């Protein structure tokens, strides 16, 4: 029971990071450093709660959340790709816009800068309790997880399939590796990059929806708490490869869950909250260190002249 509870906690922590990491990965393969995942997630979370409160229609709230994230991503994409703005500055700008925009809407239309906490909020579909009793450890861990968690777990292998087995994936990777070569065979570089950005918007939207709609049912400014960047760290750690990125996301989620456990042991809450950020930083350092060691020139035996 303990193990599956912990595993459930890991899945909980990992899912938004994994989705953010996959979002960052798709754009990384198109040679775009995407720091705007954070902002896209935040907007999705806000729209999910706002639409859900207004209409009480969970499917509509979910769709609008993902759509909002895609629209934000296209805004970023157009400015950075078509108008050739600096990617990092534009990405940071999008994050500032997301934070400032959501706060503005909160203050202007909801008169509450502290957040949006609806009294009633519809619930999304969760794996029914008791349906997976027959699977040891994993079964109970997956029970009561939202469908977005299942989607995220499926998206990891699906993204690998997309990248390596579909014509779209080939074109995307070509654009990321050598734009000139891609153009020479007639691939529309700008369209490919915009597609990558939109795909990352979709994934970020899923992450934002998961954060707001799964158990919390409310929106707080800054509720994404840097998970978009932790996802980016996971992608960098994994070198843009789907399986390594997924592994890194799980690693960071694991440390997040571990931190949660420590909280029960009276560790200060701030220390606990620090766990994923520390894990991400250390993970990046370790990844780069190993890469440096791998690329070190081979020594020459002194016996040789």
């Amino acid at each position, binding site marked *: 029971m303990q193990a599956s509870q912990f595993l459930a906690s890991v899945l909980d922590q990992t899912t938004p990071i994994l989705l953010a990491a996959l979002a960052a990965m798709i754009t990384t393969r198109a040679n775009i*450093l995407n*720091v705007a995942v954070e902002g896209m997630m935040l907007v999705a979370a806000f729209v999910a709660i706002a639409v859900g409160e207004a209409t009480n229609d969970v499917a509509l709230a979910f769709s609008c959340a993902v759509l909002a994230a895609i629209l934000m991503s296209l*805004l*970023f994409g157009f*400015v950075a790709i*078509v*108008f*050739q*703005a*600096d990617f*990092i*500055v*534009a990405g*940071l*700008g*999008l*994050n*500032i*816009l*997301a*934070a*400032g*925009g959501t*706060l*503005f809407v*909160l*203050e*202007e239309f909801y008169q509450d*800068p502290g957040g949006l906490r609806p009294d009633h909020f519809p619930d999304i579909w969760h794996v029914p309790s008791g349906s997976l009793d027959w699977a040891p450890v994993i079964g109970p861990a997956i029970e009561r997880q939202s469908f977005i968690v299942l989607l995220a777990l499926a998206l990891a292998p699906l993204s690998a399939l997309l990248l390596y087995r579909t014509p779209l994936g080939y074109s995307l990777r070509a654009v990321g590796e050598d734009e000139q070569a891609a153009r020479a065979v007639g691939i*529309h570089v*700008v*369209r490919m990059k*915009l597609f990558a950005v939109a795909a990352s918007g979709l994934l970020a939207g899923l992450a934002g929806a998961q954060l707001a709609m799964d158990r919390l049912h409310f929106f707080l400014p800054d509720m994404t*708490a*840097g998970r978009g*960047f*932790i996802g*980016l*760290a996971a992608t*960098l750690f994994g070198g843009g490869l789907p399986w390594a990125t997924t592994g890194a996301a799980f690693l960071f989620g694991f440390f997040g869950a571990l931190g949660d456990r420590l909280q029960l042991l009276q560790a*200060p809450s*701030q*220390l606990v*909250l*620090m766990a994923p*950020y*520390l894990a*991400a*930083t250390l993970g*990046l*350092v370790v990844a*780069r*260190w190993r*890469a*440096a060691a791998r690329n070190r020139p081979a020594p020459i035996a002194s016996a040789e002249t």
Partner: protein
Amino acid sequence: MTGETKRLARAIAGPVAIVAAVLAGGFVLVLIISSDPVTAYRDLLFANFYSRSNFALFVNRTMPLLLIGLGVVFSFRAGVFNVGGEGQLYFGAMAAAAAALALPSAPFPLGALASIGAAIAAGALWGWIPGVLKVRLDVNEVVSTLMLNFIALLTTEYLVTNPLRDQTAYGAVSFVIPRGAWIPEIPGLPGATSGAVVAVLIAPLAWLALFRTEWGANLRAAGSNMRFAEAVGVDAGKQIIIAMLISGGLSGLAGAFYVLGIGHRFEQNFSPAFGLIGLTVALLARLHPIGVLATAAFYALVLNGAAYMQIDTDVPRSIVGLLTGFLVLFMTARPRRGLIAV
């Protein structure tokens, strides 16, 4: 116009245009949502001059934006995308508070100087870490500085809610800093810290260092083409680390000036995203140290003005955050002639 003034003019022409456009868009937005748009915009732009104490607050707001902005200029010019100003600010502020509290009987100015020294060191350390990680291991500095921001904020939050907390005061704040560490106010402008004057003096010094010393030329070479810098004999790695030390140190200094000169204690969440705004301000000034003076003052003006605007009218202050988002998003875009080719 001399070559230098021309370069400065060219540096701020583009941003001025974008700021004007965003302000115009903001005015349209205010028109739509407010019943009294004229007062709103008047407050936004001029409230700082309504009274001496308003002006003092404006001066106080300019100080951290200016210092953090100058820090960004140094790091970006060395080729490092340092977005860790917030964390470096917090660590500097915490170090200043802790040092002052640790030396309660130190007289002025020794107490203040010791605290300032501690703050600069703490900020510099928090800039050194991502710098060295980038140089030695090629760790992406955007991610590392952002992670370190969170770690710094959480660490200082822990410190101010536990060991350093002043239980008698309301909220998570530290004890009041001993008098020996207080930084004086600007004579004639009560409430405004003289740290702002120091900040204003640092700007031209930064310009001199970057554009009129061989060290500065080497730093800019390392930032604009590291392989070229290496080839002409510059130790690019060392330049980058020094730039990060300076960058972090300046943010730490801002923290010291805040704690020792304005709040007189460490308060949790005292910074309304100074780090990110400092970054905006530096980018808006196209990384020109003197330009940062202008853009930092402008932003302090607008941020404070927005607070008055919210009190006087029905326009929420977060409109500034919204407009800033658009500003930074579009700031580096290049308009294209003709139709978009997709």
